């Protein structure tokens, strides 16, 4: 069902828009963090990585702000139906986006530990995986802004690709570790990085479910595709 | 905004407007007060004039008269006087002659007209009350005749004035409260008149009026307001009733004459006829007041009663009518006050007749106080002047009493609910 017109109380509209803007802002920050983290990883940019770790605080602050605004909105405006679902979705999504930011921070933290990484073949797959995950986050947050349930469903479908990437990276790193015990340390880190990116994809599908419920009032049918085996 | 410079609330133009407003309010207060003062003045004037003129009517001069019954010409059998035939026996005797003789004996020939009908009545009742006085001598204080009374109170003809002086010199004249005025009925002799007959007639007439007008008026009001459908017929009825209330009262007299006396052949001048005529006149007032009072009962009370499952009749009689009762009683008071003072319609139905005895019931010929006042005011005899004013005072007091009763009833109902 569409939101036909604005609220009679214009301030109510403004409050909801501000809440959504916060979510958008958080999403943008989180996407940027992931991008940056991958870049720093590839380019061994230690300073950039440290900056990412710092910037995570901003995301935390935004999450707190979002939570505060959502609670206020519920208390003061007594939202009903679609408005209520919107607000609850925003509250949950902010938590999830904050966790995505944490994964970016986690990746950035591993950058100094991967100094001597040579040209490892698995390393080349990671940026592509990161790009897809980031795209998923971007698209699902767009779907939230547009209240587009169809778009949310399409995002879920892409998670399969991310899971496949993770499977192949996992196998590649395993092989790499078996080749040379020296590689185990770094491979382990890279494994964690891959896992983080896979989690980002999963979180994007979580957000997609919340967006679907907010827009339609129904719960999404069982997600297409299976989750990763590992 | 708070600067010292004049803004729109303190500018000159505004101040002038304020002053003008105050002065027009003061002027209005003055006019109102003046109107009230004028009304009070008129009322005070009326009351003081009436009181002054009428006060005399409540008093009476009495003269001392020694009578030697044994030696008089009164031949009355004490035995008969103790029986049931006493009044008739006394009426047959020549009390008047006895009095004249006794008066002349006591005060000389000019005292022949000292006593009138009042004294005759007084002596008759004294004899009936105590037949033993016939055995010997007694000295009685008896009311003087009208001429002497007038001469004593104000100024009469020379003969009477001389008589008064003579009596006063001998200390045989005193002034007392005229109880006869309140107990006696109409008479040709002003010293013997009383308002009792008229009071009783008024009472019976008003009783008939109220017994007819109040129930019919209230029930009509209830029906018209609560039960009647709203259509052209009921609109016409409403217009008719409003007009009826404004019809001159003498028309009702004509109506009474034509219907009650000529067609129905009821007793002329009886309270029942007067009551019915006045009821016709009072009913529209009660219906209008009743309808207005019922209209003011808030619909929420009706809804509440209906919601509990009361029928229309129960709603009306258990809830609406009790709440409307103060208003209805007010209308009744107004109607009753008007009826009390009506003279013209009652004259038309014959209550102008001279009725000497008070009525025993509502079918006996009677007269009412306003008519009595009118008749007395027409009389030539000067003695009637003060009696008329005294009767007016009695009428005012009577009206005050009845209004007071009605107001008390209304307040009692108002408090309870």
């Amino acid at each position: 069902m569409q939101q036909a017109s604005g609220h009679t109380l214009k301030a109510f509209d403004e409050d909801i828009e501000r809440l959504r803007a916060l979510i958008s802002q958080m999403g943008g920050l989180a996407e940027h963090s992931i991008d940056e983290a991958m870049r720093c990883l590839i380019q061994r940019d230690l300073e950039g990585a440290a900056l990412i770790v710092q910037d995570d605080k901003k995301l935390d602050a935004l999450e707190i702000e979002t939570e505060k605004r959502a609670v206020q909105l519920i208390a003061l405006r007594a939202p009903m139906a679609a408005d209520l679902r919107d607000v609850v979705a925003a509250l949950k999504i902010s938590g999830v986006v904050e966790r995505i930011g944490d994964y970016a921070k986690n990746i950035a933290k591993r950058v100094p530990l991967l100094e001597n990484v040579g040209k490892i073949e698995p390393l080349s797959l990671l940026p592509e995986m990161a790009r897809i995950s980031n795209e998923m986050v971007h698209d699902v947050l767009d779907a939230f802004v547009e209240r587009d349930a169809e778009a949310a469903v399409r995002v879920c479908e892409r998670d399969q690709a991310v899971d496949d990437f993770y499977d192949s990276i996992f196998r590649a790193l395993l092989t790499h570790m078996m080749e040379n015990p020296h590689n185990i340390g770094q491979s382990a880190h890279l494994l964690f990085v891959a896992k983080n990116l896979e989690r980002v994809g999963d979180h994007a599908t979580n957000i997609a479910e919340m967006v679907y419920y907010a827009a339609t009032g129904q719960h999404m049918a069982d997600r297409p595709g299976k989750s990763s085996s590992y | 905004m708070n600067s010292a410079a004049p803004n729109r609330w303190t500018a000159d133009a505004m101040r002038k407007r304020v002053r003008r407003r105050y002065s027009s309010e003061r002027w209005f207060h003055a006019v109102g007060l003046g109107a009230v003062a004028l009304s009070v003045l008129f009322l005070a004037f009326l009351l003081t004039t009436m009181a002054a003129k009428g006060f005399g009517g409540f008093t009476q001069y009495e003269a001392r008269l020694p009578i030697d019954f044994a030696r008089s010409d009164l031949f009355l059998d004490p035995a008969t006087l103790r029986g049931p035939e006493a009044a008739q026996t006394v009426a047959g005797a020549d009390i008047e002659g006895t009095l004249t003789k006794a008066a002349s004996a006591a005060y000389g020939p000019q005292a022949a007209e000292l006593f009138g009908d009042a004294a005759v009545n007084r002596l008759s009742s004294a004899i009936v009350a105590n037949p033993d006085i016939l055995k010997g001598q007694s000295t009685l204080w008896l009311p003087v005749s009208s001429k002497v009374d007038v001469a004593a109170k104000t100024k009469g003809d020379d003969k009477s004035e001389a008589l008064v002086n003579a009596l006063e010199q001998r200390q045989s004249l005193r002034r007392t409260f005229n109880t006869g005025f309140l107990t006696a009925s109409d008479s040709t002799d002003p010293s013997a008149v009383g308002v009792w007959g008229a009071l009783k007639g008024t009472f019976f007439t008003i009783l008939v009026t109220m017994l007819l007008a109040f129930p019919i008026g209230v029930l009509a009001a209830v029906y018209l307001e609560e039960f009647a459908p709203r259509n052209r017929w009921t609109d016409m009825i409403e217009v008719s009733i409003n007009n009826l209330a404004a019809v001159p009262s003498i028309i009702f007299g004509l109506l009474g004459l034509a219907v009650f006396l000529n067609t129905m052949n009821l007793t002329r001048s009886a309270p029942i006829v007067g009551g019915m005529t006045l009821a016709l006149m009072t009913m529209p007032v009660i219906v209008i007041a009743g309808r207005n009072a019922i209209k003011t009962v808030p619909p929420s009370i009706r809804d509440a009663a209906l919601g509990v499952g009361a029928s229309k009749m129960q709603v009306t009689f258990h809830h609406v009518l009790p709440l409307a009762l103060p208003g209805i009683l007010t209308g009744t008071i107004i109607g009753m006050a008007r009826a009390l003072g009506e003279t013209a319609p009652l004259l038309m139905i014959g209550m102008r007749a001279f009725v000497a005895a008070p009525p025993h019931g509502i079918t006996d010929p009677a007269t009412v106080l306003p008519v009595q006042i009118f008749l007395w005011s027409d009389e030539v005899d000067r003695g009637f002047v003060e009696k008329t004013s005294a009767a007016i005072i009695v009428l005012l007091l009577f009206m005050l009493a009845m209004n007071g009763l009605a107001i008390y009833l209304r307040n009692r109902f108002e408090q309870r609910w």
Partner: protein
Amino acid sequence: MTPNHSTITLPKPEVADAVEPPVERNPKMSAESVSVFYGDKQALKDVSIKIYDDRVTAFIGPSGCGKSTFLRCLNRMNDTIPSARVTGKIELDGKDITSTAMDVVQLRARVGMVFQKPNPFPKSIFENVAYGPRIHGLSSSKSELDGIVESSLKRAGLWDEVKDRLSESGTALSGGQQQRLCIARAIAVDPEVILMDEPCSALDPIATAKIEELIHELRGRYAIAIVTHNMQQAARVSQRTAFFHLGEMVEYGKTSEIFTNPREQRTQDYITGRYG
């Protein structure tokens, strides 16, 4: 110290909400294609609804949408308005209430009403409550009448406050107490259905809360239909809600669903405040 989960007891689920009654269960009152005309103007168009006896049904909608008009049809209060004409069928326990076989006075005793502005009779508190039973002959002795008055006042939650002053005038009570007195008065005739027309709109929040709690307690005994323009109140108090708009009944369903996921756009617009 971790909480012992076995000691946490979950509240029992609301029976009326958890299980949807089977379709064949008889409604207490049902309306079929009810329309109301005031002269030429149609105030209510083809309303059909079923009211069941173990739940509170709320009618919501903007001003002038016909919800009060419909409520008043249920106990034929519209009969008192000369220009009103009601068409369609309304049944109480399966019997048509507009037929001549149904005595309207008895109907109004079985289907009680509480109005927007508290309107106690200008009589004593006792008389207010005793009037209904008295005119319907529900008690055969003074002590029985006393008992009815006491139980009605207790059920209305007013007994403790007025038991020492039953002979005082009903109009001397506060607004909230007066409304509870009116509810006691409606209960005293032992109705089967209670209709409430915006009962709390003239009351302060505390009095409102007391009445809402009272409605909750009365729910099992009487079928209650409440008209309210306060959506939060409808949400708090009812199990079923019907949304009226411009004389039509737009949507009727479970209260929890209407307020979280209504089916009709008009309903959504109204409850989210996008109306007008």
